[in-house]
């Protein structure tokens, strides 16, 4: 495998004392989009929170550009080059657009780059972040992450609840990030869009990696993807009650 800028080995992540993610090994390659897929509740957010230090990792190591970061507090991981655009558009609503960017600036982080990527934000720089539309808030969260000069950017469900045209706009922005030298780990519900711009893909089911390979292997094959999401009938050991529920609901209708 090519050298990895983010090297996650055998990590397990817990929420409180409840283990959610088990022994995940995952690599993110430089200047590329790595895609992390999985059904609702598979543990994607928990895994990202574990990498960023927001949830407790109970085992394993995390290497970022050769530096071991698993023992560091969240803000030091950010300083080490880990960016994280969290789920649910976490702008600071009490601050203006520009203040959102300024509080996140470290070192030479540059507003110009952020504004070039998202001109919408420059036009609204003095507006309270709470007054932005959903799409603009998502742009602000991405732009804010850039101000920390990340080497790797984790992005969680950025398209949730947004119009398709906005989602495409965001996806092309993510692709541009890689040309700026940033590696991306992208968690996405719209699997086909993510697989279009991604190179490698991982699928998480019930907290474990059940698929790892080129995005091309999954792209365009919804049935295969569904099998990885929910488990398969031929695989009783992996029998999944989520799949069962979905099937039951289907029959009820």
């Amino acid at each position, binding site marked *: 495998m090519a050298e990895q800028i983010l090297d996650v080995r055998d990590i397990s992540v817990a929420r409180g004392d409840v283990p959610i993610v088990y022994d995940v090994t995952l690599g993110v390659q430089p200047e590329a989009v790595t895609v992390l897929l999985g059904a609702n509740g598979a543990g994607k957010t928990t895994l990202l929170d574990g990498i960023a230090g927001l949830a407790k990792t109970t085992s394993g190591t995390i290497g970022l550009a050769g530096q071991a970061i698993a023992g560091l507090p969240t803000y030091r991981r950010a300083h080490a080059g880990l960016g994280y655009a969290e789920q649910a558009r976490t702008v600071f609503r009490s601050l203006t657009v520009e203040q959102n960017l300024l509080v*996140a600036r470290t070192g030479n982080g540059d507003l110009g780059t952020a504004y070039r990527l998202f001109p919408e934000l420059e036009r609204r720089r003095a507006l309270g972040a709470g007054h932005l539309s959903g799409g603009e808030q998502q742009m602000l969260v991405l732009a804010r992450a850039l101000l920390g000069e990340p080497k790797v950017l984790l992005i969680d469900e950025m398209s949730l609840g947004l119009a398709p045209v906005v989602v495409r706009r965001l996806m092309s922005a993510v692709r541009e990030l890689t040309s700026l030298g940033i590696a991306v780990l992208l968690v996405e519900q719209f699997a086909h869009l993510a697989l279009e711009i991604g190179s490698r893909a991982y699928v998480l089911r019930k907290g474990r990696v059940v698929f790892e390979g080129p995005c091309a292997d999954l792209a365009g094959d919804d049935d295969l993807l569904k099998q990885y999401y929910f488990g398969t009938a031929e695989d009783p050991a992996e029998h999944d009650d989520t799949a069962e529920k979905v099937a039951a609901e289907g029959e009820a209708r």
Partner: protein
Amino acid sequence: MLGSVVAGLTSGGVYALLGLSIVLTYRLAAVVNFAMAVIGAMGAFVMASLTDAGLNVWPALIVGAVSGGLLSAVLGAGLVRWFGAHALRTKAAVTVAVYVALMALGLRLFGSVTTGARRFPQPFDAPAFVVGDVVVPQAALVSLALAVLITVGVTLLLGRTMFGLRLQAISERPATAEVVGIPAPRLALAVWTGIGALTTLVIVLVAPRLGGDFSTLGNLVTTALAVAMIGAFHSLWLTLAGGLLLGCLEGAAASLEAVQAYRGVLPFLVMLALLWWRSRHEVWDTATAAR
């Protein structure tokens, strides 16, 4: 009567500042700190002990403020370290425990009402000016000016400086603030230290008027909480107004012989009135929402 109200303004400025400390701790560190005033009293008594021992007032004041700041920082660090992820009420309970402990320690170290009242320096005792037959002491002006100045200063600090903007970010989304690289624990410690030092200065300012015994000063937290409630634990300007209002009410009550003995329950009455007023509005809100 007017004279008593004006005299009440002296306390009013002080109450406003104490309320401000409570509100800031709540907004910036997400803690309702019942130990606020007793920490300030500790700092103030360190100062008084030093001046008693013959040290000049100003260095003593600095050492006292630093002590109050450090004590506050220790409490803050402990809360961040061991109770960071806990609910608001748990952290409040911890500060109640610290309040009880520091009260006991303070009384042991500095004596009780009868034995331990210290002579605090009274630099602003002279009358500033006289209106009609009302003498306005310097202390009233100083505490008023200080209250306004600090409210303005804190507002500017929060809205205009990088330090303040980052504090706002932490207060709104603590986890996200760290995600974007803001060193939240370090900034929280700075906040605790600053507020501890400020509270010490405020207690020093009010101590001579209140007789300078440890438990009276430590118990000022009830008044501070009432004032913070007027500010809804958020608005700095409402907190300032609330402090002044409570001071004037207290002054007025002191001048009416019939209620004089009961003026200690004023903060309680204010809290009760606010709770009733706000709950009334909530009921009204849900009624309209249901429509």
